[in-house]
């Protein structure tokens, strides 16, 4: 029997944020099975999200989608309700254990709000927060005024205010010092603004300022619930002159010193800070990738990988991990690439458990740092620097995870390679038979072909099946699809391709580069390398949302799918590898889970997680 859920905070569906109220106050709502504090008692602690109900307009109806938790029991079912004004709620649909977590409400009437109740053991749980239907297929978040021409390069997500929904953090890039702003996705309100200050002005893509963020392929910012209390914090690179959300300015006598500051996600105030490693201080400020991972398998850590340059020549590289207690930030370990300790670095890091011990490693393209800060392995076979690499379960018939990487001007001819992510053993390599390898620049992985085993991986030297090694599409006349991003949008378990502001399926029959069935073209600005500021599963079921800034810099739009599906998967954000991936953004690459997500997949194993308890 459904009781009335709270009214949406924004009854007008075209207004900012996705609205909603805390009907399931203090918890996740939508069922006790996923309640805060639930899950594997020894698992990694993750933010306690609500059901993430979202109701984009679809034709004359509303497509309503909601989140399955990684902690939900396999037999959980759901009932979705609609409430029109003060009328009694009516059930729109029920979803059995073998059905997806979405349905189309063909006749929503006016002023519809939606909430969901989980059913376990025949008992209906508490309602989720109720959210109003959207007037379109995206959530709108107005941007505060910033410097003329300021644009959003990168965005991050985390539950800043502890209300169970993912909020949004963005940078604002202009010729002035970059800004960082937090926004409530539920209300659309700006929560705070950080100003990187005078040492953030130099945005050189190689040798930027001490407090510079989002320059080149660097980020220097990440968002996560680092103390596992249910509220997300912001970790940001800071230096003298950095201004926090409460107006406090960081004062430090030496402009060269850099810090990792932990910022309160609700207020923007600095909680604490710790120094970035200063091993290479004489070579100038470090530029960094920031991210989150679970080095002990239970509590999250701040991870940084930073570089600077010796004159105009070689690069120094240092990585570090930090523990945040809620009040103090302590460095756990430091890793420097010197004395052949390490391998080639790429333009991004991935933080995931490659060796299956339950603890995360920090993977760079040519080497992996173990959870304890020591080198786990460096790739052999002459692998040098490349731009991109990917790690996921590409071959379900093979134990563990596999990796795929590309090369840049390898003098030995190597152009791409496929490897065992546990050991670094090269399983297959692909070289230019006629000389030095090319600067491949782009390469990706996805399961496009249902009749090929596992994923396909490709760059501009052909597409191959991970399971068999077979050549699937020869690269003739530039006919492989543009290898940018894998995205889940249309509801089948095969991969869609995201490039610039479009997502769609590549035409498997035509096998020509620009033959796609585009599923959605998003309205908004595209950033470097054909990337949008953010994409990932942050609303509704397991499909991924796309966040773009409008061309007039006036608002953010979070697009969400309206494709119906009966595929049921727990939210990708509860997958450990995927959730970590959402924290790393500088040189954006596909977000990948740690199980096989593709055609003919088996049900993924339950993630070893527990949801943060709330006070």
């Amino acid at each position: 029997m459904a009781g009335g859920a709270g009214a949406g905070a924004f009854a007008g569906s075209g207004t900012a944020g996705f609205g909603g109220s805390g009907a399931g106050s203090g918890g996740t709502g939508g069922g006790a099975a996923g309640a805060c504090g639930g899950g594997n008692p020894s698992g990694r602690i993750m933010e306690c999200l609500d059901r993430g109900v979202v109701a984009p307009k679809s034709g004359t109806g509303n497509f309503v989608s909601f989140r399955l938790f990684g902690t939900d029991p396999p037999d959980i079912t759901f009932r979705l309700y609609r409430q029109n004004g003060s009328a009694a709620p009516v059930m729109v649909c029920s979803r059995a254990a073998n059905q997806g977590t979405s349905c189309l409400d063909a006749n929503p009437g006016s002023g519809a709000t939606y909430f969901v109740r989980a059913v376990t053991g025949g008992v209906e749980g508490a309602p989720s927060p109720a959210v109003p239907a959207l007037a379109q297929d995206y959530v709108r978040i107005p941007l505060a005024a910033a410097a003329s021409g300021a644009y959003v390069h990168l965005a991050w997500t985390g539950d800043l205010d502890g209300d169970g929904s993912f909020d949004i953090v963005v940078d604002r890039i202009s010729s002035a010092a970059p800004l960082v702003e937090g926004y409530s996705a539920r209300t659309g309100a700006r929560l705070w603004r950080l100003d990187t200050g005078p040492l953030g002005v130099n945005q050189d893509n190689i040798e930027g300022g001490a407090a510079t963020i989002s320059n080149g392929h660097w980020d220097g910012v990440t968002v996560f619930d680092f103390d596992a209390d249910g509220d997300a914090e912001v970790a940001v690179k800071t230096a003298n002159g950095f201004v926090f959300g409460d107006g406090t300015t960081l004062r430090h006598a030496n402009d060269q010193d850099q810090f990792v500051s932990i910022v309160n996600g609700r207020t923007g105030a600095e909680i604490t800070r710790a120094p970035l490693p200063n091993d290479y201080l004489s070579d100038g400020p470090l530029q960094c990738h920031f991210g989150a991972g679970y080095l002990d398998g239970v509590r999250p850590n701040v991870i940084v990988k930073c570089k600077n340059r010796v004159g105009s020549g070689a690069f120094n590289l240092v990585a570090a991990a930090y523990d945040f207690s809620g009040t103090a930030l302590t460095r756990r370990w430091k890793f420097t690439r010197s004395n052949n300790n390490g391998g080639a670095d790429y333009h991004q890091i991935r933080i995931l458990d490659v060796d299956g011990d339950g603890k995360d490693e920090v993977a760079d393209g040519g080497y992996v740092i173990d959870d304890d800060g020591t080198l786990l392995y460096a790739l052999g076979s002459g692998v040098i620097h490349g731009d991109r690499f990917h790690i996921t379960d590409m071959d379900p018939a093979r134990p563990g995870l596999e990796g795929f990487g590309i090369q840049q001007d390898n003098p030995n001819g190597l152009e791409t390679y496929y490897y065992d992510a546990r050991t670094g053993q090269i399983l297959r390599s692909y070289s230019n038979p006629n000389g030095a390898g090319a600067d491949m620049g782009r390469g990706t992985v996805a399961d496009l072909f249902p009749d090929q085993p596992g994923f396909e991986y490709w760059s501009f030297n052909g597409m191959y099946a991970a399971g068999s090694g077979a050549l699937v599409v020869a690269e003739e006349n530039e006919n492989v699809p543009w290898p940018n991003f894998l995205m889940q949008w249309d509801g089948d378990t095969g991969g869609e391709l995201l490039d610039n502001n479009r997502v769609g399926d590549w035409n498997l029959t035509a096998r020509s580069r620009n033959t796609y069935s585009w599923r959605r073209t998003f309205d908004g600005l595209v950033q470097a390398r054909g990337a949008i500021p953010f994409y990932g599963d942050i609303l509704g079921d397991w499909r991924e949302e796309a966040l773009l800034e409008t061309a007039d810099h006036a608002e953010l739009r979070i697009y969400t799918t309206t494709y119906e599906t009966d595929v049921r998967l727990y939210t990708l954000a509860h997958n450990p590898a995927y959730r970590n991936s959402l924290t790393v953004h500088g040189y954006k690459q596909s977000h990948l889970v740690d199980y096989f997500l593709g055609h003919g997949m088996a049900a993924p194993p339950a993630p070893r997680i527990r949801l943060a308890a709330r006070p």
Partner: protein
Amino acid sequence: VTRGALVLAPALVALSFAGPARAHDPFEITALARLGASELVLEVTMARGTALRLATGRTGPRETFAPKAFPEHHAKLLALAPSLYAITSDGAALPLRARSVALTEEGDVLSVLASAESPGERVRFRASHLGVLPEGYTSALSVATSAEKPTYYKLLVATDPELEVEHEGSPGLARAARRVFDDYAPLILLLGALVGGRIVERVTRREPGATRRVVQAGE
């Protein structure tokens, strides 16, 4: 080349708002335009393979050249440079001439172009090279219209290859007059109405008197 040197020499990628990136991936071009009172200067930077592709039509990632082979390609790249961007100034074509083409410290191709004429009030940039390259290439354009630092930025792609900017430094009198009018239109109209009204009032009041005076003077 030793392996140690190889792993320590990755080319960095990306763009900076403040100007062209110092190293490029093969699919990203950056450009910085400076609009002065007497000329427009445009710097376009791209990977060697991208430049060679534009100059020769050779396709495929393996089609590039070593930095030491740059002199062999210099003439082709110099000829290519003026066609990289199509620029209009107040609706009329603003031709660019190549000043130089050289390799940067990072081994990318830097083309510097300049206009022979002053840029006008509205300057439109079209990344014409994106129409030649296959989809997937992007061109990050920053434009500085008055100060040293860019005030406009847009990532241009094949499906959206243009950016129009307002040239604050344009010396045109018409522009200045229009700006004054745009900024003070209500006040000007109000003053105009008041002054016009007073003139009409005075003229209509004086007409009889003036006539009388003339008549009187004639008398």
